[in-house]
């Protein structure tokens, strides 16, 4: 198929921004030279293994490590008693949760929770030694879903949780960690004015980020008290801070060295093996490496929550949505902290609804503590909203895209959580959807249907730091603190190159450790190209000023007479025709040593002004009514990115998020037995999509610039995962006439839907 340019609305043209140079880390990664966590080796390195709970919910009565004492193969053993004493105080409730998730003290709250750890010269010796540790448990009843946890089961997971601000219908508020509420207008009056209302309940399952590289950490606690951690992480500074809290040491005592990341998607912010490896290192005096197996990773690190959502939306016959309400109960896992807050924000944020009420509950269950996963909480929410919107459009006999256009949030619309939307590209995305070849191609095959959905994600910013050093050959070393996911080294370098009139290849970006670069918040929230790009832009301006000053010194003119144009310094307009008053960037760089020494440009930013992202997708799905198998036959994503610094990486993010959304929709789930054990903790049975399961993901980049970034960047990493489950559910409805309210929509779910529609 022939398509026109996949970038619409791009207004400003740049020399580097918007081009597609080869990524700086490409050669290392394709030749296997890039260093990941498991690649770390050093003198005296020993290996740590963790003993994990076999129970989903149990009280620890005793831990006996006597059989390991004086064992010559064992270098160190740790239990929770090796963590520092906690001071009494309220803040320590959250600290206890952090500590217990790393190594349990009084109770275990999920199968796979660490209980003790051993270090030995070989990983096999360490693993065998775990069998010699005796732990006595009192087994308790587990509860593994949010719905069960608050409506059906009276099991209490944490004695210290007791949320009282809840709906009367909730049976067990003891498992609710927090309640969030948003309200606009008068929802009761709004529903009274509606001609059509649709009310539905939705259940979604726990899903893992599915990064290729399991969690890892190598720690060395030196005799001088300095602790160094090498690991794969999205947030080296966050790991430093959390590890310092757990170990009760100063952040300045810890250096975190971020290595290449084999995927993170939000799952690589929290420390897991780091504090344990640190304690084993402190006891043994040697560096200790812990690398999780795939099963450990699935059972013990943070997935994204399963959820229960009850939603009602109403509209009048003109197609105006007048009222909406939602109850969201998200599984926090074993300890508080689900993304129900962002679910509650995003559930109606794509729309302009005058009356709404949203209640969100953070619910503890006996599963691993959840972590962020690409637009955390928003996919669950959009699955509910976007399928109900589809149903309302059908009842009103209005095209569902037209209904969305009529009710779309735009600049000036109040978000459900209160703030006003600044400039967003909602209408531009919807227009691009409506005009797209995919949307306008008829679909007439039996059992094949087309669905659409839209989504909003607010994106993030945060502190970031960047330094630029000029090499005497006219190239630049760029140092940043954002671990590279998705090619951010290059997108950051390109922004500096644009300011300096250089090529992207003239900049050599490096991600430094926490001792070597200023504080930089983690690679999350689609923030890096925005915030670290901004820091690089400001650092380049700083560098340019210093270089112009040096040129002025060489020419003995006032700096106000020096200009920098097209990669050349010029000594004022009057001298533009004089070749002796011109210098290329390289020519000036060659003279730095003789004219005052090296030059560094630097900048720090607080990363304010992030712009929200709006996106939509169009999906064609074919359903086999005999088996329930669903094939995605065509998929298009349209996304407002603000400005695509490197369009190939933007397309990659849009495609990657879409594929993860397809996996979430179709197959992925934690299958739990009645003991609270995950039954599919391997990648054969935890079924993520492969290239054989999906068509080429077509992308349309819409550019509505963020006015708070010099090039208009919004952030592109997350919003693409939000729409696929809803769009696929809508496509399945068009194909075979069944509305599915549960994820995943695997063959079993589809067949149950078909059979129940035939009853």
């Amino acid at each position, binding site marked *: 198929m022939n398509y026109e340019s996949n970038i619409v609305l791009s207004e400003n043209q740049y020399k580097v921004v918007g081009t597609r140079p080869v990524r700086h880390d490409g050669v290392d990664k394709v030749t296997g030279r890039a260093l990941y966590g498991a690649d770390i080796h050093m003198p005296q390195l020993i290996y740590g293994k963790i003993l994990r709970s076999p129970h989903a919910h149990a009280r620890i009565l005793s831990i006996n490590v006597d059989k390991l004492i004086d064992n010559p193969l064992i270098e160190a053993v740790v239990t929770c008693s090796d963590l520092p004493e906690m001071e009494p105080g309220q*803040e320590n409730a959250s600290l206890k949760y952090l500590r217990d998730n790393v190594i349990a003290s009084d109770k275990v709250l999920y199968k796979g929770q660490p209980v003790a750890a051993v270090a030995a010269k070989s990983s096999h010796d360490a693993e065998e030694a775990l069998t010699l540790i005796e732990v006595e448990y009192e087994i308790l009843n587990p509860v593994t879903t949010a719905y069960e946890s608050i409506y059906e089961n009276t099991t209490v997971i944490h004695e210290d949780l007791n949320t009282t601000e809840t709906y009367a219908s909730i049976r067990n508020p003891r498992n609710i960690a927090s*309640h*969030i*509420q*948003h*309200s606009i207008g008068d929802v009761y009056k709004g529903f009274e004015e509606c001609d059509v209302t649709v009310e539905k309940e939705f259940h979604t399952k726990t899903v893992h*980020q599915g990064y290729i590289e399991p969690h890892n950490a190598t720690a060395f606690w030196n005799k001088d008290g300095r602790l160094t951690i090498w690991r794969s992480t999205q947030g080296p500074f966050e790991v430093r801070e959390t590890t310092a809290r757990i170990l009760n040491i100063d952040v300045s005592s810890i250096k975190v060295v971020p290595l290449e990341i084999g995927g*993170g*998607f*939000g*799952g690589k*912010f929290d420390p897991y093996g780091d504090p344990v490896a640190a304690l084993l290192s402190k006891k043994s005096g040697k560096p200790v490496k812990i690398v999780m197996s795939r099963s450990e990773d699935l059972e013990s690190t943070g997935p994204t929550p399963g959820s229960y959502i009850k939603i009602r939306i109403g509209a009048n016959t003109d197609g105006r949505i007048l009222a909406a309400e939602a109850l969201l109960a998200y599984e926090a896992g074993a300890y508080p902290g689900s*993304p129900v*807050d*962002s679910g509650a*924000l995003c559930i109606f944020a794509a729309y302009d609804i005058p009356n709404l009420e949203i209640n969100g509950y953070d619910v503890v269950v006996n599963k691993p503590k959840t972590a*962020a*996963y*690409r*637009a*955390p909480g928003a996919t669950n929410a959009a699955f509910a909203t976007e399928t109900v919107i589809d149903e309302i459009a059908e009842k009103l006999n209005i095209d569902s895209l037209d209904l969305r256009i009529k009710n779309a949030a735009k600049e000036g619309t109040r978000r459900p*959580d*209160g*703030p*006003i*939307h*600044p400039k967003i590209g909602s209408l531009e995305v919807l227009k691009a959807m409506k005009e797209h070849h995919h949307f306008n191609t008829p679909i007439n095959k039996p059992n094949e249907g087309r669905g659409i959905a839209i989504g909003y*994600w*607010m*994106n*993030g*910013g*945060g*502190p970031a730091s960047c330094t630029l050093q000029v090499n005497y050959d006219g190239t630049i070393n760029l140092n940043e603190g954002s671990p590279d*996911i*998705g090619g951010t080294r290059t997108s950051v370098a390109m922004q500096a190159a644009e300011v300096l009139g250089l090529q992207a290849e003239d900049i050599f970006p490096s991600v430094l450790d926490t001792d070597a670069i200023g504080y930089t918040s983690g690679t*999350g*929230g*689609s*923030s890096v190209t925005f915030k670290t790009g901004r820091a690089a832009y400001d650092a380049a301006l700083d560098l340019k000023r210093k270089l112009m000053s040096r040129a002025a010194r060489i020419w003995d003119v006032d700096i106000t007479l020096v200009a920098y144009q097209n990669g050349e310094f010029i000594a004022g307009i009057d001298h533009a025709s004089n070749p002796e008053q011109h210098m290329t960037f390289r020519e000036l760089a060659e003279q730095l040593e003789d004219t005052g020494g090296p030059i560094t440009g630097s900048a720090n930013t*607080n*990363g*304010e*002004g*992030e712009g929200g992202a709006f996106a939509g997708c169009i999906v064609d799905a074919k359903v086999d009514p005999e088996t329930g198998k669903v094939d995605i036959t065509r998929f298009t994503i349209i996304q407002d990115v603000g400005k695509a610094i490197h369009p190939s990486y933007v397309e990659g*993010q849009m495609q990657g*998020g879409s594929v993860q959304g397809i996996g979430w929709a179709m197959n992925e789930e934690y299958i739990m037995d009645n003991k609270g054990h995950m039954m599919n903790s391997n990648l054969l049975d935890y079924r993520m999509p492969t290239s054989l399961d999906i068509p080429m993901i077509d992308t349309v980049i819409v550019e509505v610039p963020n006015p*708070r970034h010099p090039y208009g960047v919004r952030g592109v*990493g*997350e919003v693409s995962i939000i729409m696929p489950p809803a769009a696929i559910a809508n496509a399945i409805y068009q194909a075979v006439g069944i509305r599915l309210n549960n994820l995943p929509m695997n063959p079993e779910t589809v067949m149950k839907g078909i059979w129940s529609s035939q009853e």
Partner: protein
Amino acid sequence: MPVVFLTPNLKKLESQPTKIIVDGLSIKSVIDNVEKIYPGFKDKLLANNRIKRGISIVVDGEVRRSGLLSRVSETSEIHFLSAISGGA
């Protein structure tokens, strides 16, 4: 004068309004002035004289990251919301 939105989570009593207009050109002065009208407001937002972890300041639709020093204008809308963390 700036308007402070009192979300359900920030209100102590159902009878409190959903927004309040107070003097102030910084988040610190705005919070101090709301506290005078609704004692206890400060405790919901501050710990050790800093904005609590997990709360984000939103001024005129934009997240501000300068804590109590964040500037506001005469016409600003101010929200105190759960800080959102992202995943990619």
